Protein backbone atom coordinates (compact mmCIF):
# COMPACT_ATOMS: atom_id res chain seq x y z
CA UNK A 1 0.00 0.00 0.00
CA UNK A 2 1.22 3.48 -0.82
CA UNK A 3 1.62 6.28 1.69
CA UNK A 4 -1.43 8.48 1.88
CA UNK A 5 0.09 10.75 4.51
CA UNK A 6 3.69 11.72 5.12
CA UNK A 7 4.46 14.09 8.00
CA UNK A 8 8.10 15.25 8.33
CA UNK A 9 9.60 17.16 11.25
CA UNK A 10 6.41 19.07 11.93
CA UNK A 11 6.58 21.84 14.53
CA UNK A 12 4.03 24.31 15.76
CA UNK A 13 4.76 27.14 18.17
CA UNK A 14 2.08 29.46 19.51
CA UNK A 15 3.10 32.82 20.85
CA UNK A 16 0.96 34.15 23.64
CA UNK A 17 2.23 37.67 24.24
CA UNK A 18 5.93 37.13 24.99
CA UNK A 19 5.62 33.45 25.88
CA UNK A 20 6.19 30.88 23.16
CA UNK A 21 4.31 27.59 23.62
CA UNK A 22 5.64 24.69 21.62
CA UNK A 23 2.60 22.55 20.86
CA UNK A 24 4.48 20.29 18.44
CA UNK A 25 8.22 19.80 18.67
CA UNK A 26 9.12 17.86 15.51
CA UNK A 27 6.67 15.13 14.61
CA UNK A 28 7.31 12.65 11.80
CA UNK A 29 5.23 9.67 10.74
CA UNK A 30 3.55 8.08 7.76
CA UNK A 31 0.18 6.49 7.17
CA UNK A 32 -0.71 4.06 4.41
CA UNK A 33 -3.92 3.95 2.43
CA UNK A 34 -6.50 1.94 4.32
CA UNK A 35 -4.96 2.48 7.75
CA UNK A 36 -6.87 2.93 10.97
CA UNK A 37 -4.45 5.07 12.93
CA UNK A 38 -5.13 6.33 16.44
CA UNK A 39 -3.30 9.24 18.06
CA UNK A 40 -3.25 8.94 21.83
CA UNK A 41 -1.69 10.96 24.60
CA UNK A 42 -2.49 13.05 27.64
CA UNK A 43 -4.32 16.31 27.48
CA UNK A 44 -2.17 19.06 26.01
CA UNK A 45 0.16 16.62 24.27
CA UNK A 46 -0.63 18.11 20.86
CA UNK A 47 -3.17 15.72 19.32
CA UNK A 48 -5.59 18.40 18.19
CA UNK A 49 -2.77 20.61 16.97
CA UNK A 50 -1.37 17.78 14.88
CA UNK A 51 -4.74 16.90 13.33
CA UNK A 52 -5.43 20.57 12.54
CA UNK A 53 -2.13 20.82 10.71
CA UNK A 54 -2.70 17.59 8.78
CA UNK A 55 -6.15 18.82 7.84
CA UNK A 56 -4.78 22.13 6.59
CA UNK A 57 -6.90 24.08 9.07
CA UNK A 58 -3.78 25.72 10.45
CA UNK A 59 -0.24 26.20 9.14
CA UNK A 60 2.86 24.60 10.73
CA UNK A 61 5.75 26.67 12.03
CA UNK A 62 8.06 24.31 10.15
CA UNK A 63 8.09 20.85 8.62
CA UNK A 64 6.33 19.22 5.70
CA UNK A 65 3.00 17.52 5.16
CA UNK A 66 2.27 15.45 2.07
CA UNK A 67 -1.23 14.15 1.47
CA UNK A 68 -1.79 11.73 -1.40
CA UNK A 69 1.30 13.13 -3.10
CA UNK A 70 0.43 16.83 -2.60
CA UNK A 71 2.53 19.16 -0.45
CA UNK A 72 -0.10 20.73 1.77
CA UNK A 73 2.27 23.06 3.64
CA UNK A 74 3.19 24.85 0.43
CA UNK A 75 -0.32 25.66 -0.66
CA UNK A 76 -1.91 29.10 -0.50
CA UNK A 77 -5.04 29.40 1.56
CA UNK A 78 -7.66 29.00 -1.18
CA UNK A 79 -5.78 25.98 -2.61
CA UNK A 80 -5.71 24.44 0.84
CA UNK A 81 -9.48 24.88 1.08
CA UNK A 82 -9.84 23.14 -2.29
CA UNK A 83 -7.56 20.31 -1.16
CA UNK A 84 -9.63 19.84 1.99
CA UNK A 85 -12.76 19.60 -0.14
CA UNK A 86 -11.17 17.02 -2.45
CA UNK A 87 -9.03 14.85 -0.21
CA UNK A 88 -9.91 15.22 3.45
CA UNK A 89 -12.99 14.34 5.43
CA UNK A 90 -13.52 15.76 8.92
CA UNK A 91 -15.36 14.31 11.89
CA UNK A 92 -15.58 16.59 14.90
CA UNK A 93 -15.99 15.92 18.57
CA UNK A 94 -19.09 18.14 18.63
CA UNK A 95 -20.50 16.73 15.33
CA UNK A 96 -20.75 20.22 13.76
CA UNK A 97 -23.60 19.58 11.38
CA UNK A 98 -25.13 22.67 9.82
CA UNK A 99 -28.30 23.16 11.89
CA UNK A 100 -30.51 24.58 9.11
CA UNK A 101 -29.79 21.70 6.75
CA UNK A 102 -31.33 18.21 6.89
CA UNK A 103 -29.16 15.11 7.29
CA UNK A 104 -29.38 14.61 3.53
CA UNK A 105 -28.39 18.23 2.79
CA UNK A 106 -25.51 18.10 5.26
CA UNK A 107 -24.08 15.07 3.52
CA UNK A 108 -24.68 16.69 0.13
CA UNK A 109 -22.75 19.85 1.06
CA UNK A 110 -19.21 18.59 0.21
CA UNK A 111 -20.47 17.31 -3.15
CA UNK A 112 -21.86 20.77 -3.94
CA UNK A 113 -18.45 22.27 -3.17
CA UNK A 114 -16.98 19.69 -5.55
CA UNK A 115 -19.61 20.55 -8.20
CA UNK A 116 -20.72 16.95 -8.54
CA UNK A 117 -23.64 16.67 -10.99
CA UNK A 118 -27.10 16.23 -9.55
CA UNK A 119 -27.85 12.61 -10.35
CA UNK A 120 -24.50 11.39 -9.09
CA UNK A 121 -24.88 13.53 -5.99
CA UNK A 122 -28.15 11.88 -5.09
CA UNK A 123 -26.86 8.33 -5.44
CA UNK A 124 -23.69 9.12 -3.47
CA UNK A 125 -25.55 10.86 -0.65
CA UNK A 126 -28.02 7.99 -0.40
CA UNK A 127 -25.22 5.42 -0.43
CA UNK A 128 -23.30 7.29 2.28
CA UNK A 129 -26.39 7.60 4.48
CA UNK A 130 -27.08 3.90 4.00
CA UNK A 131 -23.50 2.99 4.90
CA UNK A 132 -23.76 4.77 8.24
CA UNK A 133 -27.20 3.24 8.81
CA UNK A 134 -29.19 6.47 8.92
CA UNK A 135 -31.04 6.47 5.59
CA UNK A 136 -34.41 6.61 7.35
CA UNK A 137 -33.48 9.91 9.00
CA UNK A 138 -32.36 11.74 5.89
CA UNK A 139 -35.10 14.41 6.10
CA UNK A 140 -34.38 15.24 9.73
CA UNK A 141 -32.54 18.29 10.92
CA UNK A 142 -29.63 17.83 13.38
CA UNK A 143 -31.71 19.09 16.30
CA UNK A 144 -34.09 16.18 15.70
CA UNK A 145 -31.30 13.59 15.89
CA UNK A 146 -29.50 12.03 18.84
CA UNK A 147 -25.79 12.60 19.33
CA UNK A 148 -24.93 9.19 17.94
CA UNK A 149 -27.14 9.76 14.90
CA UNK A 150 -25.60 13.18 14.34
CA UNK A 151 -22.13 11.69 14.46
CA UNK A 152 -23.20 9.07 11.91
CA UNK A 153 -24.43 11.82 9.60
CA UNK A 154 -21.13 13.63 10.16
CA UNK A 155 -19.23 10.46 9.21
CA UNK A 156 -21.36 10.11 6.06
CA UNK A 157 -20.52 13.75 5.25
CA UNK A 158 -16.81 13.03 5.78
CA UNK A 159 -16.68 10.11 3.40
CA UNK A 160 -19.26 11.04 0.75
CA UNK A 161 -16.75 12.70 -1.56
CA UNK A 162 -14.39 9.73 -1.36
CA UNK A 163 -11.53 11.45 0.47
CA UNK A 164 -8.02 10.05 0.71
CA UNK A 165 -8.13 10.54 4.43
CA UNK A 166 -10.72 11.06 7.17
CA UNK A 167 -9.52 13.01 10.21
CA UNK A 168 -11.40 12.75 13.48
CA UNK A 169 -10.50 14.63 16.66
CA UNK A 170 -11.96 12.68 19.58
CA UNK A 171 -15.05 11.60 17.62
CA UNK A 172 -16.59 9.77 20.58
CA UNK A 173 -15.79 12.15 23.43
CA UNK A 174 -19.31 13.66 23.38
CA UNK A 175 -21.14 10.33 23.27
CA UNK A 176 -22.17 7.92 26.00
CA UNK A 177 -20.09 4.77 26.10
CA UNK A 178 -22.56 2.52 24.33
CA UNK A 179 -23.10 4.96 21.48
CA UNK A 180 -19.37 5.59 21.40
CA UNK A 181 -18.80 1.89 20.80
CA UNK A 182 -21.34 1.85 17.99
CA UNK A 183 -19.64 4.79 16.32
CA UNK A 184 -16.22 3.16 16.68
CA UNK A 185 -17.67 -0.01 15.24
CA UNK A 186 -19.02 1.91 12.29
CA UNK A 187 -15.67 3.58 11.64
CA UNK A 188 -13.87 0.26 11.92
CA UNK A 189 -16.31 -1.37 9.52
CA UNK A 190 -16.01 1.45 6.96
CA UNK A 191 -12.25 1.04 7.26
CA UNK A 192 -12.18 -2.68 6.71
CA UNK A 193 -15.01 -3.00 4.21
CA UNK A 194 -14.59 0.21 2.22
CA UNK A 195 -10.93 0.89 2.77
CA UNK A 196 -11.52 4.37 4.20
CA UNK A 197 -8.31 5.69 5.81
CA UNK A 198 -8.91 7.06 9.31
CA UNK A 199 -6.54 9.13 11.43
CA UNK A 200 -8.12 10.07 14.71
CA UNK A 201 -7.26 11.15 18.21
CA UNK A 202 -8.76 9.59 21.30
CA UNK A 203 -8.57 9.14 25.02
CA UNK A 204 -10.68 6.03 24.78
CA UNK A 205 -8.77 2.81 25.45
CA UNK A 206 -11.42 0.77 23.64
CA UNK A 207 -10.73 2.60 20.40
CA UNK A 208 -7.02 2.11 20.81
CA UNK A 209 -7.69 -1.60 21.09
CA UNK A 210 -9.31 -1.76 17.68
CA UNK A 211 -6.81 0.57 16.03
CA UNK A 212 -4.30 -0.85 13.61
CA UNK A 213 -1.60 1.39 15.04
CA UNK A 214 -1.48 3.81 17.95
CA UNK A 215 0.74 6.85 17.82
CA UNK A 216 1.39 7.86 21.40
CA UNK A 217 2.20 11.51 21.97
CA UNK A 218 3.73 13.33 24.87
CA UNK A 219 4.68 17.01 25.07
CA UNK A 220 4.33 17.62 21.37
CA UNK A 221 6.43 14.64 20.32
CA UNK A 222 5.74 11.09 19.20
CA UNK A 223 6.72 8.95 22.14
CA UNK A 224 6.19 5.58 20.53
CA UNK A 225 4.16 3.83 17.86
CA UNK A 226 2.43 0.58 18.72
CA UNK A 227 0.82 -1.98 16.47
CA UNK A 228 1.13 -3.63 13.12
CA UNK A 229 4.45 -3.02 11.34
CA UNK A 230 5.06 0.00 13.55
Amino acid at each position, binding site marked *: MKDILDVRELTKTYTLGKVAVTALGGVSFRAKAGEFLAIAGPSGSGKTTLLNLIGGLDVPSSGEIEIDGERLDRLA*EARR*ADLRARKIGFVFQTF*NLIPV*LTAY*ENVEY*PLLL*GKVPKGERRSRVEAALAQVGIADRSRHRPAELSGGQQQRVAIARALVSGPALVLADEPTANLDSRTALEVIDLMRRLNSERGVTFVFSTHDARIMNVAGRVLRMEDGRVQNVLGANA
Partner: protein
Amino acid sequence: MGIQLKLALRNIFRNRRRTAITLAAMAFGASSIILFGGFVNFIFISVRESTIRSQVGHIQLYRKGFLDKGSVAPNDYMIANFDEIRALAKGIEHVKDVIPRLGFSGLVSTGETTTSFVGSGGNPEGEEGLSSFTRIVEGKALSSSDPRGVTLGLGMARGLGVKEGDSLTLLATTKDGGINALAVKVRGIWESGEKAYDDRFLKAPIREVQRLLDNEGEVQSIVLLLDSTENTGFVRDRLAALIRDRGFDLEIKTWEDLALRYHQVRDLFSNIFNVMALIVSFIVVLGIANTMTMSIFERTREIGTVMALGTRRSGVISMFLLEGIVLGVLGGILGAVVGIVIAKAVSFVGIPMPPPPGSTQGFIAKILIVPAVLAKAFRLSLIAAILSSLYPAWRASRLNITEALRHV
Protein backbone atom coordinates in the same frame (compact mmCIF):
# COMPACT_ATOMS: atom_id res chain seq x y z
CA MET B 1 -32.60 26.03 -5.41
CA GLY B 2 -28.88 26.61 -4.90
CA ILE B 3 -27.40 25.65 -1.55
CA GLN B 4 -26.32 29.26 -0.96
CA LEU B 5 -29.83 30.61 -1.36
CA LYS B 6 -31.25 27.75 0.71
CA LEU B 7 -28.80 28.50 3.52
CA ALA B 8 -29.52 32.23 3.32
CA LEU B 9 -33.29 31.78 3.52
CA ARG B 10 -33.20 29.22 6.30
CA ASN B 11 -30.71 31.17 8.34
CA ILE B 12 -32.81 34.31 7.97
CA PHE B 13 -35.85 32.52 9.34
CA ARG B 14 -33.86 30.72 12.02
CA ASN B 15 -34.23 33.50 14.56
CA ARG B 16 -37.73 34.65 13.73
CA ARG B 17 -37.99 37.33 16.34
CA ARG B 18 -34.76 39.02 15.34
CA THR B 19 -35.58 38.77 11.66
CA ALA B 20 -39.02 40.22 12.35
CA ILE B 21 -37.43 43.21 14.09
CA THR B 22 -34.91 43.72 11.29
CA LEU B 23 -37.57 43.44 8.60
CA ALA B 24 -39.78 45.84 10.54
CA ALA B 25 -36.93 48.37 10.64
CA MET B 26 -36.37 47.97 6.91
CA ALA B 27 -40.08 48.18 6.15
CA PHE B 28 -40.28 51.30 8.27
CA GLY B 29 -37.40 52.83 6.33
CA ALA B 30 -38.74 51.89 2.91
CA SER B 31 -42.30 52.91 3.68
CA SER B 32 -41.25 56.29 5.12
CA ILE B 33 -39.40 56.95 1.89
CA ILE B 34 -42.45 55.90 -0.13
CA LEU B 35 -44.80 58.02 1.98
CA PHE B 36 -42.66 61.11 2.04
CA GLY B 37 -41.78 60.72 -1.62
CA GLY B 38 -45.46 60.26 -2.47
CA PHE B 39 -46.39 63.36 -0.52
CA VAL B 40 -43.64 65.42 -2.12
CA ASN B 41 -44.79 64.27 -5.55
CA PHE B 42 -48.32 65.32 -4.71
CA ILE B 43 -46.98 68.77 -3.85
CA PHE B 44 -44.96 68.88 -7.10
CA ILE B 45 -47.95 67.98 -9.21
CA SER B 46 -50.28 70.32 -7.31
CA VAL B 47 -47.91 73.23 -7.72
CA ARG B 48 -47.37 72.31 -11.36
CA GLU B 49 -51.05 71.97 -12.17
CA SER B 50 -52.11 75.07 -10.25
CA THR B 51 -49.39 77.07 -11.95
CA ILE B 52 -50.45 75.78 -15.34
CA ARG B 53 -54.21 76.07 -14.81
CA SER B 54 -54.14 79.47 -13.19
CA GLN B 55 -51.26 81.31 -14.77
CA VAL B 56 -48.98 80.03 -17.49
CA GLY B 57 -51.11 77.45 -19.28
CA HIS B 58 -49.38 74.52 -20.92
CA ILE B 59 -47.97 76.45 -23.84
CA GLN B 60 -47.62 80.12 -24.66
CA LEU B 61 -47.01 81.77 -28.00
CA TYR B 62 -45.30 85.16 -28.39
CA ARG B 63 -44.11 87.33 -31.22
CA LYS B 64 -40.38 86.77 -31.59
CA GLY B 65 -38.57 89.31 -29.42
CA PHE B 66 -41.46 90.03 -27.06
CA LEU B 67 -39.87 88.21 -24.14
CA ASP B 68 -36.63 90.17 -24.51
CA LYS B 69 -37.83 93.64 -25.47
CA GLY B 70 -41.60 93.52 -24.97
CA SER B 71 -41.53 95.07 -21.55
CA VAL B 72 -40.06 98.31 -22.95
CA ALA B 73 -42.04 98.49 -26.18
CA PRO B 74 -44.95 96.06 -25.91
CA ASN B 75 -46.76 97.58 -28.84
CA ASP B 76 -43.99 96.60 -31.24
CA TYR B 77 -44.45 92.90 -30.48
CA MET B 78 -48.17 92.26 -30.82
CA ILE B 79 -49.69 89.24 -32.52
CA ALA B 80 -52.12 90.50 -35.16
CA ASN B 81 -53.51 87.20 -36.53
CA PHE B 82 -54.92 85.69 -33.35
CA ASP B 83 -58.06 84.31 -34.99
CA GLU B 84 -56.07 82.44 -37.65
CA ILE B 85 -53.70 80.98 -35.07
CA ARG B 86 -56.55 79.96 -32.83
CA ALA B 87 -58.23 78.05 -35.63
CA LEU B 88 -55.00 76.22 -36.46
CA ALA B 89 -54.15 75.45 -32.85
CA LYS B 90 -57.63 74.11 -32.15
CA GLY B 91 -57.03 71.62 -34.93
CA ILE B 92 -54.17 70.00 -33.00
CA GLU B 93 -55.05 66.93 -30.96
CA HIS B 94 -55.15 67.42 -27.15
CA VAL B 95 -55.64 71.22 -27.37
CA LYS B 96 -58.63 72.25 -25.27
CA ASP B 97 -58.51 76.04 -25.07
CA VAL B 98 -56.74 78.80 -26.96
CA ILE B 99 -56.81 81.97 -24.92
CA PRO B 100 -55.64 85.45 -25.97
CA ARG B 101 -53.75 87.54 -23.45
CA LEU B 102 -53.43 91.26 -23.42
CA GLY B 103 -51.78 92.74 -20.39
CA PHE B 104 -52.19 96.42 -19.61
CA SER B 105 -51.80 98.78 -16.72
CA GLY B 106 -52.98 102.19 -15.70
CA LEU B 107 -55.15 103.91 -13.11
CA VAL B 108 -58.58 102.93 -11.83
CA SER B 109 -60.80 105.51 -10.20
CA THR B 110 -64.15 105.59 -8.41
CA GLY B 111 -64.22 109.36 -8.68
CA GLU B 112 -63.15 109.71 -5.06
CA THR B 113 -60.39 107.12 -4.83
CA THR B 114 -57.77 106.40 -7.50
CA THR B 115 -55.17 103.64 -7.54
CA SER B 116 -52.91 101.94 -10.03
CA PHE B 117 -53.75 98.54 -11.45
CA VAL B 118 -52.36 95.73 -13.52
CA GLY B 119 -54.93 94.16 -15.74
CA SER B 120 -55.42 91.43 -18.24
CA GLY B 121 -57.77 91.30 -21.12
CA GLY B 122 -59.19 87.85 -21.52
CA ASN B 123 -61.59 86.12 -23.83
CA PRO B 124 -64.59 85.73 -21.52
CA GLU B 125 -65.74 82.51 -23.17
CA GLY B 126 -62.33 80.87 -23.26
CA GLU B 127 -61.11 81.64 -19.79
CA GLU B 128 -62.80 78.82 -17.90
CA GLY B 129 -59.78 76.62 -18.15
CA LEU B 130 -57.62 79.24 -16.51
CA SER B 131 -60.07 80.53 -13.96
CA SER B 132 -59.71 77.90 -11.29
CA PHE B 133 -56.96 80.04 -9.83
CA THR B 134 -59.43 82.75 -8.83
CA ARG B 135 -62.65 82.15 -7.03
CA ILE B 136 -65.58 84.52 -7.41
CA VAL B 137 -66.63 85.72 -3.96
CA GLU B 138 -69.19 88.29 -5.09
CA GLY B 139 -71.05 88.84 -8.38
CA LYS B 140 -70.15 86.94 -11.56
CA ALA B 141 -67.27 86.13 -13.90
CA LEU B 142 -66.59 88.05 -17.14
CA SER B 143 -69.14 87.57 -19.89
CA SER B 144 -69.27 88.65 -23.50
CA SER B 145 -72.90 89.61 -22.93
CA ASP B 146 -71.67 92.29 -20.52
CA PRO B 147 -68.80 93.97 -22.43
CA ARG B 148 -68.34 96.74 -19.85
CA GLY B 149 -68.32 94.43 -16.83
CA VAL B 150 -64.91 93.95 -15.18
CA THR B 151 -63.86 91.80 -12.23
CA LEU B 152 -61.50 92.87 -9.44
CA GLY B 153 -59.34 91.21 -6.84
CA LEU B 154 -60.87 91.26 -3.37
CA GLY B 155 -58.06 93.42 -1.97
CA MET B 156 -58.48 96.00 -4.71
CA ALA B 157 -62.28 96.08 -4.28
CA ARG B 158 -61.86 96.68 -0.54
CA GLY B 159 -59.22 99.35 -1.13
CA LEU B 160 -61.50 101.19 -3.54
CA GLY B 161 -64.54 100.54 -1.39
CA VAL B 162 -66.61 99.18 -4.27
CA LYS B 163 -69.13 96.37 -4.60
CA GLU B 164 -70.92 94.61 -7.45
CA GLY B 165 -72.64 97.05 -9.82
CA ASP B 166 -70.52 100.11 -8.86
CA SER B 167 -69.04 102.25 -11.65
CA LEU B 168 -65.33 102.71 -12.28
CA THR B 169 -63.15 104.55 -14.78
CA LEU B 170 -60.04 102.95 -16.26
CA LEU B 171 -57.26 105.20 -17.57
CA ALA B 172 -54.46 103.84 -19.78
CA THR B 173 -51.92 104.84 -22.42
CA THR B 174 -52.90 103.99 -25.99
CA LYS B 175 -50.74 102.40 -28.67
CA ASP B 176 -49.81 105.84 -30.00
CA GLY B 177 -48.96 107.29 -26.61
CA GLY B 178 -52.22 109.12 -25.96
CA ILE B 179 -54.37 108.79 -22.82
CA ASN B 180 -57.68 107.01 -23.06
CA ALA B 181 -60.44 106.39 -20.53
CA LEU B 182 -63.08 103.67 -20.34
CA ALA B 183 -66.16 103.63 -18.14
CA VAL B 184 -66.83 100.17 -16.70
CA LYS B 185 -68.92 98.46 -14.01
CA VAL B 186 -67.87 96.02 -11.29
CA ARG B 187 -69.33 92.70 -12.42
CA GLY B 188 -67.59 90.44 -9.95
CA ILE B 189 -65.01 90.27 -7.18
CA TRP B 190 -62.64 87.33 -6.88
CA GLU B 191 -59.96 85.97 -4.66
CA SER B 192 -56.88 84.08 -5.81
CA GLY B 193 -55.25 83.29 -2.50
CA GLU B 194 -52.26 85.43 -3.47
CA LYS B 195 -52.49 88.74 -1.65
CA ALA B 196 -50.21 90.72 -3.95
CA TYR B 197 -52.32 89.61 -6.88
CA ASP B 198 -55.69 90.24 -5.20
CA ASP B 199 -54.64 93.79 -4.24
CA ARG B 200 -53.51 94.94 -7.68
CA PHE B 201 -55.24 92.99 -10.37
CA LEU B 202 -58.32 93.34 -12.49
CA LYS B 203 -59.72 91.50 -15.49
CA ALA B 204 -61.65 92.93 -18.41
CA PRO B 205 -63.08 91.54 -21.68
CA ILE B 206 -60.32 91.64 -24.25
CA ARG B 207 -62.31 93.62 -26.85
CA GLU B 208 -62.84 96.49 -24.40
CA VAL B 209 -59.16 96.47 -23.49
CA GLN B 210 -58.24 96.56 -27.18
CA ARG B 211 -60.56 99.54 -27.55
CA LEU B 212 -58.98 101.27 -24.53
CA LEU B 213 -55.46 100.71 -25.88
CA ASP B 214 -56.58 101.48 -29.44
CA ASN B 215 -55.06 98.28 -30.88
CA GLU B 216 -58.08 96.49 -32.34
CA GLY B 217 -57.53 92.74 -32.93
CA GLU B 218 -54.05 92.52 -31.43
CA VAL B 219 -52.94 90.31 -28.54
CA GLN B 220 -49.67 90.02 -26.63
CA SER B 221 -49.62 86.31 -26.16
CA ILE B 222 -51.68 83.20 -26.73
CA VAL B 223 -52.13 80.64 -23.99
CA LEU B 224 -52.94 77.03 -24.81
CA LEU B 225 -54.54 74.64 -22.35
CA LEU B 226 -54.36 70.94 -23.09
CA ASP B 227 -56.34 67.98 -21.90
CA SER B 228 -53.36 66.74 -19.91
CA THR B 229 -49.91 68.05 -18.98
CA GLU B 230 -48.29 64.87 -20.33
CA ASN B 231 -49.18 65.96 -23.88
CA THR B 232 -47.24 69.22 -23.74
CA GLY B 233 -44.28 67.89 -25.71
CA PHE B 234 -46.49 66.45 -28.44
CA VAL B 235 -48.44 69.69 -28.95
CA ARG B 236 -45.29 71.79 -28.80
CA ASP B 237 -43.75 69.79 -31.62
CA ARG B 238 -46.89 70.07 -33.74
CA LEU B 239 -47.05 73.82 -33.15
CA ALA B 240 -43.39 74.23 -34.01
CA ALA B 241 -43.95 72.40 -37.30
CA LEU B 242 -46.99 74.55 -38.02
CA ILE B 243 -45.13 77.78 -37.30
CA ARG B 244 -42.27 76.69 -39.51
CA ASP B 245 -44.56 75.69 -42.39
CA ARG B 246 -46.61 78.86 -42.31
CA GLY B 247 -43.65 81.13 -41.66
CA PHE B 248 -45.24 82.74 -38.58
CA ASP B 249 -43.06 85.09 -36.59
CA LEU B 250 -43.79 83.32 -33.30
CA GLU B 251 -41.87 81.64 -30.53
CA ILE B 252 -43.13 78.85 -28.27
CA LYS B 253 -42.69 78.55 -24.53
CA THR B 254 -43.94 75.63 -22.45
CA TRP B 255 -44.94 75.65 -18.81
CA GLU B 256 -41.52 74.24 -17.98
CA ASP B 257 -39.87 77.40 -19.32
CA LEU B 258 -42.31 79.66 -17.50
CA ALA B 259 -43.16 78.00 -14.18
CA LEU B 260 -40.12 79.16 -12.26
CA ARG B 261 -41.72 78.68 -8.90
CA TYR B 262 -42.52 75.08 -9.73
CA HIS B 263 -38.85 74.42 -10.35
CA GLN B 264 -37.88 76.09 -7.10
CA VAL B 265 -40.39 74.06 -5.12
CA ARG B 266 -39.28 70.92 -6.88
CA ASP B 267 -35.58 71.49 -6.18
CA LEU B 268 -36.23 72.33 -2.56
CA PHE B 269 -38.41 69.32 -1.87
CA SER B 270 -36.16 66.99 -3.84
CA ASN B 271 -33.28 68.02 -1.62
CA ILE B 272 -35.29 67.53 1.54
CA PHE B 273 -36.42 64.15 0.26
CA ASN B 274 -32.87 63.06 -0.53
CA VAL B 275 -31.57 64.11 2.88
CA MET B 276 -34.43 62.26 4.54
CA ALA B 277 -33.80 59.13 2.44
CA LEU B 278 -30.13 59.28 3.39
CA ILE B 279 -30.87 59.50 7.12
CA VAL B 280 -33.39 56.66 6.94
CA SER B 281 -30.96 54.49 4.95
CA PHE B 282 -28.24 55.16 7.48
CA ILE B 283 -30.46 54.02 10.35
CA VAL B 284 -31.48 50.92 8.41
CA VAL B 285 -27.83 50.13 7.67
CA LEU B 286 -26.99 50.27 11.37
CA GLY B 287 -29.95 48.02 12.19
CA ILE B 288 -29.06 45.33 9.69
CA ALA B 289 -25.35 45.49 10.51
CA ASN B 290 -26.23 44.84 14.12
CA THR B 291 -28.40 41.83 13.24
CA MET B 292 -25.73 40.45 10.93
CA THR B 293 -22.99 40.88 13.49
CA MET B 294 -25.00 39.05 16.15
CA SER B 295 -25.97 36.30 13.78
CA ILE B 296 -22.39 35.79 12.64
CA PHE B 297 -21.16 35.67 16.21
CA GLU B 298 -23.70 32.98 17.04
CA ARG B 299 -22.73 30.99 13.98
CA THR B 300 -18.98 31.16 14.50
CA ARG B 301 -18.57 27.39 14.80
CA GLU B 302 -20.69 26.77 11.72
CA ILE B 303 -18.49 29.14 9.77
CA GLY B 304 -15.44 27.23 11.00
CA THR B 305 -17.11 23.99 9.94
CA VAL B 306 -17.97 25.02 6.38
CA MET B 307 -14.44 26.38 5.96
CA ALA B 308 -13.00 23.09 7.26
CA LEU B 309 -15.16 21.25 4.72
CA GLY B 310 -13.46 23.24 1.99
CA THR B 311 -15.55 26.40 1.55
CA ARG B 312 -13.20 29.20 0.55
CA ARG B 313 -13.16 32.49 2.42
CA SER B 314 -14.72 34.14 -0.62
CA GLY B 315 -17.51 31.57 -0.34
CA VAL B 316 -18.16 32.67 3.24
CA ILE B 317 -18.36 36.30 2.10
CA SER B 318 -20.85 35.48 -0.63
CA MET B 319 -22.86 33.37 1.80
CA PHE B 320 -23.44 36.32 4.13
CA LEU B 321 -23.77 38.88 1.34
CA LEU B 322 -26.49 36.74 -0.18
CA GLU B 323 -28.18 36.66 3.18
CA GLY B 324 -28.04 40.46 3.22
CA ILE B 325 -29.45 40.64 -0.30
CA VAL B 326 -32.33 38.31 0.54
CA LEU B 327 -33.03 40.37 3.65
CA GLY B 328 -32.92 43.52 1.53
CA VAL B 329 -35.34 42.12 -1.04
CA LEU B 330 -37.75 40.93 1.67
CA GLY B 331 -37.52 44.22 3.56
CA GLY B 332 -37.96 46.18 0.33
CA ILE B 333 -41.05 44.23 -0.70
CA LEU B 334 -42.53 44.46 2.78
CA GLY B 335 -41.77 48.20 2.89
CA ALA B 336 -43.39 48.73 -0.50
CA VAL B 337 -46.54 46.88 0.57
CA VAL B 338 -46.75 48.76 3.88
CA GLY B 339 -46.02 52.06 2.14
CA ILE B 340 -48.71 51.53 -0.50
CA VAL B 341 -51.32 50.50 2.07
CA ILE B 342 -50.61 53.51 4.31
CA ALA B 343 -50.47 55.86 1.31
CA LYS B 344 -53.88 54.67 0.14
CA ALA B 345 -55.37 54.95 3.61
CA VAL B 346 -53.95 58.43 4.20
CA SER B 347 -55.05 59.63 0.76
CA PHE B 348 -58.52 58.29 1.40
CA VAL B 349 -58.79 60.47 4.50
CA GLY B 350 -56.68 63.36 3.14
CA ILE B 351 -54.18 65.54 4.97
CA PRO B 352 -55.52 69.04 5.72
CA MET B 353 -52.72 71.47 4.90
CA PRO B 354 -52.35 75.09 6.04
CA PRO B 355 -52.25 77.78 3.33
CA PRO B 356 -48.90 77.77 1.53
CA PRO B 357 -46.77 80.96 1.69
CA GLY B 358 -48.39 83.80 -0.28
CA SER B 359 -51.74 82.08 -0.28
CA THR B 360 -54.85 82.43 1.85
CA GLN B 361 -56.44 79.05 1.25
CA GLY B 362 -55.48 75.72 2.76
CA PHE B 363 -55.77 72.49 0.79
CA ILE B 364 -56.18 68.75 1.23
CA ALA B 365 -53.00 66.84 0.44
CA LYS B 366 -52.76 63.22 -0.66
CA ILE B 367 -49.90 60.75 -0.96
CA LEU B 368 -49.30 59.62 -4.52
CA ILE B 369 -48.01 56.16 -5.29
CA VAL B 370 -45.19 56.92 -7.68
CA PRO B 371 -43.40 53.99 -9.39
CA ALA B 372 -40.10 55.87 -9.39
CA VAL B 373 -40.35 56.42 -5.62
CA LEU B 374 -41.25 52.76 -5.04
CA ALA B 375 -38.24 51.75 -7.10
CA LYS B 376 -36.04 54.14 -5.14
CA ALA B 377 -37.26 52.81 -1.78
CA PHE B 378 -36.66 49.25 -2.94
CA ARG B 379 -33.23 50.11 -4.30
CA LEU B 380 -32.24 51.84 -1.07
CA SER B 381 -33.38 48.83 0.99
CA LEU B 382 -31.27 46.57 -1.13
CA ILE B 383 -28.23 48.85 -1.07
CA ALA B 384 -28.58 49.33 2.68
CA ALA B 385 -28.79 45.57 3.21
CA ILE B 386 -25.75 44.90 1.03
CA LEU B 387 -23.71 47.71 2.56
CA SER B 388 -24.49 46.60 6.08
CA SER B 389 -23.64 42.97 5.33
CA LEU B 390 -20.29 43.81 3.77
CA TYR B 391 -18.28 44.33 6.93
CA PRO B 392 -19.81 41.48 8.98
CA ALA B 393 -19.40 39.14 6.00
CA TRP B 394 -15.78 40.14 5.63
CA ARG B 395 -15.18 39.60 9.34
CA ALA B 396 -16.79 36.16 9.14
CA SER B 397 -14.52 35.24 6.26
CA ARG B 398 -11.42 36.29 8.21
CA LEU B 399 -12.16 34.00 11.16
CA ASN B 400 -9.38 31.68 12.17
CA ILE B 401 -10.72 28.21 11.36
CA THR B 402 -9.36 26.38 14.39
CA GLU B 403 -10.55 29.09 16.77
CA ALA B 404 -13.94 29.20 15.10
CA LEU B 405 -14.25 25.43 15.52
CA ARG B 406 -13.50 25.74 19.24
CA HIS B 407 -16.14 28.45 19.66
CA VAL B 408 -19.15 27.30 21.66
